[in-house]
């Protein structure tokens, strides 16, 4: 699998995700946001975490409008896979590749902690390595991860099975205190209509190594590597 990790000014988890992809056996190229084309043979585009353009104005807003995003859009339209993590998710919604928006966390504070997630379905390119309904432990690190969309959009997402992950507690129950940022329907990640674009707030790339917190994130990358 060949991945292109897009580097925006202010991205800061590009190394983390590149490491996770390489560990899973993928080839990784870091691509500058000013490029107008993706490297040939790119299977997966990754928009990494960070604070692109300082997160000024709105998170992801300025990055969503950079030259490379036209190429990313074209890649997605061709059915190519796109993964946006944290700031990458914010960029995806700002660029219209995914619906809704991510706003300030409910209590207005940045939150960095371990977080349980429920994997909603295991039949997408991103979640092949998991079982449907599986509870995994990853971590979150964001100030604006409060997912919001209008009721019709949310209904459509739910109806079409486009919710990828939900915040839950250790035994998988959803709702309540495990949703720290206030996201509607405890949404932690969503898919595009064709299930080839995934945006998620938590950081699976920081949990791929037993020595550093755990390995529950690894299956996402190994699943992707197998899918390609």
């Amino acid at each position: 699998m060949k991945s292109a990790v897009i580097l925006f000014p202010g991205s800061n988890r590009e190394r983390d995700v590149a490491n996770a992809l390489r560990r899973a056996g993928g080839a990784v190229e870091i691509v500058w946001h000013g490029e107008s084309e993706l490297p040939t043979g790119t299977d997966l585009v990754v928009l990494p975490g960070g604070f692109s353009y300082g997160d000024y104005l709105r998170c992801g807003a300025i990055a969503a409008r950079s030259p490379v995003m036209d190429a990313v859009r074209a890649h997605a339209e061709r059915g190519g896979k796109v993964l946006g993590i944290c700031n990458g998710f914010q960029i995806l919604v700002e660029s219209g590749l995914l619906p809704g928006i991510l706003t300030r966390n409910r209590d207005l504070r940045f939150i960095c902690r371990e977080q349980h997630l429920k994997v909603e379905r295991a039949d997408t390119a991103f979640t092949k390595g998991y079982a449907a309904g599986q509870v995994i432990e990853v971590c979150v690190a964001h100030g604006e991860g409060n997912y919001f969309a209008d009721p019709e959009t949310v209904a459509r997402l739910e109806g079409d099975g486009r919710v990828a992950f939900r915040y839950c507690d250790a035994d998988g129950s959803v709702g309540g205190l495990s949703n720290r940022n206030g996201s509607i329907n405890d949404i932690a990640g969503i898919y595009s209509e064709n299930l080839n674009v995934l945006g998620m707030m938590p950081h699976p790339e920081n949990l791929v190594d037993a020595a550093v917190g755990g390995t529950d994130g690894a299956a996402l990358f190994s699943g992707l590597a197998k899918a390609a």
Partner: protein
Amino acid sequence: MKARVTVTLKNGVLDPQGKAIQGALGSLGVDGVESVRQGKLFDVELATSDPAEAEATLKAMCEKLLANTVIESYRFEIAS
């Protein structure tokens, strides 16, 4: 030419910052505040002195970048 753009949340969109401010005001002893909604403003200086051109630029700025029309509306005023 100077202009001010204001971007506010659409009705019905949750405003956690506004709510938090309202809460904080209570604990600071500022009473009688029934609601707070936070928005953004941009003070802009434009090169042109032609109002029509200024208006076109401002509209383009708002549509392309300053407001996310999923949840926000914008207005602008050109300073006389």
